[in-house]
């Protein structure tokens, strides 16, 4: 039979189809290897079934600083007294005038005696940590998508993708971020993400000797956090900013911000 330029034999057509299919398959796999090899869906942990938060009871905090110390030891936070993922503040509320707040080395070495000639109305410790906002302003400003709110409600930093521009550090209203001096990327509390996905508590919650910190599921009916929120009067810090923090303070008065 005479071959026409636009005429195809069935065999040739099928051959081309096989070639095209195999090329397409190789092309697809070469760009999507993790779908076959490291599928998160295969592991037991399902992030869509969690939504984490923390409760902090100011009446229970004794200011021992073990949380800030454990956080540094667990997450290799630099020991210099300016880098913290969590820290303790001491509030001294005078009868008249401005509230005095300090946090020497985040409270890790204890608090020296308060020196000041004021009549003290009350004084207490407030543990501070990233609020893991449901509407995080730090995520909004990231120009490269290196910081994000995970499906289980934790604001994380992708340290391989972060360009160290510091926008997020400026955007955080709670001062919960810092620039890691060695890695030169933004660093912050992860709720000890590597621990919670394995069912462990965050290091600061694990070591708190007075259970001033409660970690758990915000949405779960039977969660230590739900009980904490039910039986305490709760505030979140800087509520007017609409960041929807998921760190709930009990026993905090209006000075705490």
């Amino acid at each position, binding site marked *: 039979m005479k071959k026409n330029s636009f005429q195809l034999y069935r065999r040739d057509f099928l051959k081309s189809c096989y070639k095209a299919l195999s090329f397409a398959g190789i092309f697809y796999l070469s760009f999507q290897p*993790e779908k076959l090899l490291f599928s*998160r869906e295969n592991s037991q942990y399902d992030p869509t079934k969690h939504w984490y938060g923390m409760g902090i009871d100011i009446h229970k905090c*004794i200011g021992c600083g073990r949380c800030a110390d454990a956080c540094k*030891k667990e997450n290799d936070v630099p020991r210099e007294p300016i880098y913290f993922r969590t820290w303790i503040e001491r509030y001294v509320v005078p009868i008249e005038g401005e509230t005095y707040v300090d946090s020497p080395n985040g409270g890790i070495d204890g*608090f020296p005696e308060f020196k000041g000639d004021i009549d003290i109305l009350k004084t207490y410790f407030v543990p501070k940590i990233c609020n893991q906002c449901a509407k995080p302003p730090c995520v909004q400003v990231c120009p490269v998508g290196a910081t994000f709110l995970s499906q289980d409600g934790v604001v994380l930093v992708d340290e391989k993708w972060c360009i160290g521009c510091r926008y997020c550090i400026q955007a955080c209203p709670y001062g919960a971020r810092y620039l890691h001096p060695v890695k030169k990327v933004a660093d912050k509390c992860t709720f000890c993400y590597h*621990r919670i996905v394995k069912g462990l508590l965050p290091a600061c919650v*694990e070591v*708190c*000797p007075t259970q001033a910190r409660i970690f758990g599921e915000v949405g779960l009916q039977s969660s230590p956090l739900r009980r904490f929120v039910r039986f305490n009067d709760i505030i979140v810090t800087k509520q007017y900013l609409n960041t929807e923090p998921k760190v709930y303070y009990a026993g905090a008065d209006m000075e705490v911000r």
Partner: protein
Amino acid sequence: MKSFDWKNIKLNPKIPRQIISLAIIFAIAIAAFVIGRMLFVPRSFGKYGHYRGNALDEIASQKINYAGYQVCTNCHSNIYNSLTKSNHKGVSCETCHGPAAKHTGSPGEYKPIVPREREHCQLCHAFNPSRPTGFPQIIAETHNPGKACMACHEPHNPLVPQVISECSACHRTIANQKRVSHHASLSCEQCHKVTEKHLTNPKLEKAGKPVERAFCGQCHAKDADSLKEIRRIDLSTHGGRYLCWECHYPHYPEAKR
């Protein structure tokens, strides 16, 4: 099969050649963009949101340093059992013994720290007015100076050697305030009903407070049989339905005003 014959292609006379060349340039530009994007944007970017999906696995794979008290109980259940019945029941093993994941991994090779110095216990138990009232605190300079804490107190079952006689052991801020107030000469028991149970298990039974105005009236009522320097008040007209201590702070009753 004969190859594709470019000369035979009849261009649609309605499309000018310039448009065709432009279309080719556009097609090349778009292809370059698509290929460039594939090369530069990580493959897992956008898998769960505007971030690199693989970052989650990288963060979750971080090394654990704090093993969690559950692991400790596997071998040290006897210590844990006595601890949970003691006043240190909420204190995690690693609060004092430090991160122990290396120890739980290979117990023979790594030993966790055993802090014996007084400074360690003082992190929680040194007197600090910002700590919540009721928390047992000492003044290290006067509390058996130089003696190891463990000589008298077993940290896994920290009983006080004798029943506490000084209320200031746990309520030193109140005691300090009272000492410089007009009520300095009054003992705590004069106003508070302190039961034996409050001394041994203060959380279960609180110290009683005066429940009627007439109690303060024993000294402060107009017709009271007390020193004439004591301020007097007409209980029938002053204060209405309130108990005296619902307005006045008895531990520091308007000492300066």
